[in-house]
């Protein structure tokens, strides 16, 4: 077994979701005896900073690279550079507009958010006003989750109206303030979808500060969200499998280095979880603290 050097460039670093991806990658690194580094820019808008990270990673001449591209096109020159240096690229989280990556480990965010919309409809009796607090107006996950939710409501739940979509940058405090404003402006609101971990926690904070009892559906997990679901402050949340994403990315990289053939897409899947199924082993396995 060779000690491969695998560089992972993610979309973020500080948020718990990315830390969970990192945990999965580290887990695989230990299991397969390879070295993994993990980096990501400050915010999911800093496309060029991510390219600089990718360039620095290439200079290091790693054996393989895992990339969660912030923009599906921008990385093309670096990808070509990697290709000519025979460094396999594994895309994860979202795809790259290129056939260079040997495989893509991803979650279908549109479908995941649509599931959240269906659950929301179910919980509020398929009618009334709802709102979305999302993390980012321009990033892939931000767009997909908002679109997935809003479009699904439009198509399948005509009696529900999305009255407001606002963005808090995934910052818990800002999302709290946004939620409070939405609630105060729409006293008859029935539910809010928080489109990532920070947004979802902010929504619950805002709701509790105002003593409201609207339905909240979150996204991803983390200790706080799990606690909210347990206490009932949050009805449920969509979980991706970040640990699995990290693990699969490293595993795919090793596979590629060993010359194995990989499927074009490795779907890491998503689930809806709430108080009733949180303890199920297969759900508990994809949740992170």
């Amino acid at each position, binding site marked *: 077994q060779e000690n491969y050097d695998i560089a992972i460039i993610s979309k973020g670093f*500080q*948020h*718990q979701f990315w*830390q969970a991806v990192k945990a999965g990658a580290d887990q695989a690194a230990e299991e397969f005896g390879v070295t993994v580094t993990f980096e990501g820019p*400050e915010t999911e808008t800093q496309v060029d900073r991510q390219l600089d990270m990718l360039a620095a990673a290439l200079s290091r001449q790693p054996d393989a690279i895992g990339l969660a591209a912030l923009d599906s096109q921008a990385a093309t020159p670096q990808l070509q550079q990697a290709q000519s240096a025979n460094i396999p690229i594994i895309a994860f989280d979202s795809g790259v507009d290129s056939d260079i990556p040997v495989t893509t480990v991803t979650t279908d965010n549109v479908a995941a958010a649509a599931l959240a919309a269906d659950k929301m409809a179910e919980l509020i009796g398929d009618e009334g006003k709802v709102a979305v607090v999302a993390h980012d*107006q321009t990033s892939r996950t931000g767009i997909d989750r908002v679109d997935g939710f809003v479009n699904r409501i439009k198509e399948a739940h005509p009696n529900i109206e999305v*009255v*407001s979509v*606002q*963005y808090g940058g995934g*910052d*818990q*405090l800002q999302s*709290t*303030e*946004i939620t*409070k*404003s*939405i609630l*105060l*402006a729409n*006293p008859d609101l029935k539910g809010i979808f928080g489109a990532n971990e920070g947004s979802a*926690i902010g929504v619950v*904070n805002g709701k509790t*500060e*105002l003593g409201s009892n609207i339905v909240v559906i979150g996204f991803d997990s*983390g*200790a*706080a969200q799990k*606690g909210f679901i347990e206490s009932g402050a949050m009805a449920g949340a969509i979980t991706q499998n970040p640990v699995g994403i990290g693990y699969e990315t490293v595993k795919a990289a090793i596979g590629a280095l060993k010359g194995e053939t990989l499927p074009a897409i490795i779907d890491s899947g998503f689930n809806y979880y709430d108080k009733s199924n949180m303890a199920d082993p297969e759900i508990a396995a994809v949740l992170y*603290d």
Partner: protein
Amino acid sequence: MTDTTAPAPAAKTGPRISGAFHRLLAFSGLIALIVAFSLASPNFLQTQNILAILQATSVNGVLAIAATLVIITGGIDLSVGTLMTFCAVVAGVILTYWGLPLPVGILGAILAGAASGLVSGTIIAKLKVPPFIATLGMMLILKGLSLVISGTKPIYFNDTPGFNQIALGSFIGQIFPAVPLPNGVLVLFAVALIAAFVLSKTALGRYTFALGSNEEAVRLSGVNIDRWKIAVYSVTGAICGVAGLLIASRLNSAQPALGQGYELDAIAAVVIGGTSLSGGRGTVLGTLIGALIISVLANGLRILSVAQEWQTVVTGCIIILAVYADILRRRAL
């Protein structure tokens, strides 16, 4: 920064307007905003919403007061945001990881803030590194350290039940149930009162203004300017510690990744409040008003469901206009 244009040949011609009226006018931008939003939405002037605005002001308000002190000395502190986070994380480590009692955590956060301020102040005063660079460096260092000591994950305060009462409980609401003013707002007012007192009544306050006014003159007067400068940065740091406790209490967790970017809001509040970035002049009351203008604006635009991209545009315009109105007011006086 060049807002020092000239020692204003002050064209005093009209009758002098009384001091009280003058002070009232300082609120004019804020009042104009409140009136406009009240007319635009019936939801704006609800008790609940007013409390929400005040609550939303608490963290930025405390940070802005912290920044006010160093800005009056003619310096700047870019580290207030990440220092706040650092202090929150320190509280988390003390209370959750070590399981020590609440007062220790509170003290620890404030001391951590003061210590960090001491370091910034020393770098500025002794090594003569410009405040912008020293605190930019500290901003990054504290950001990294917050991640390191928290283990790059949030620290929850679930084991310290009283902790979230710091910001969210309502001491006043227990006495007057009709006005459930959150404690966080009380903390803001308390910090403001203390800061105003320090600035106007103590030697520290005097030297704060003196340093911003003419540092060389203070030095030539035989004052140990290094010591006082370090003291001012330390007090600023301690106040950031209070902000850290507030935000941690509000989120019931110390979020190590949060904080960068908060310095700009804080400094904006200070400058909107009439404190000059070239030092020597400024008031805590002005800073409070500046912080309120920012929160009222954010809240009002959200209540009106203005599209977010336009919210940003409008906020930019109103910040400029608010300061311009203040300039016109002063010129008219």
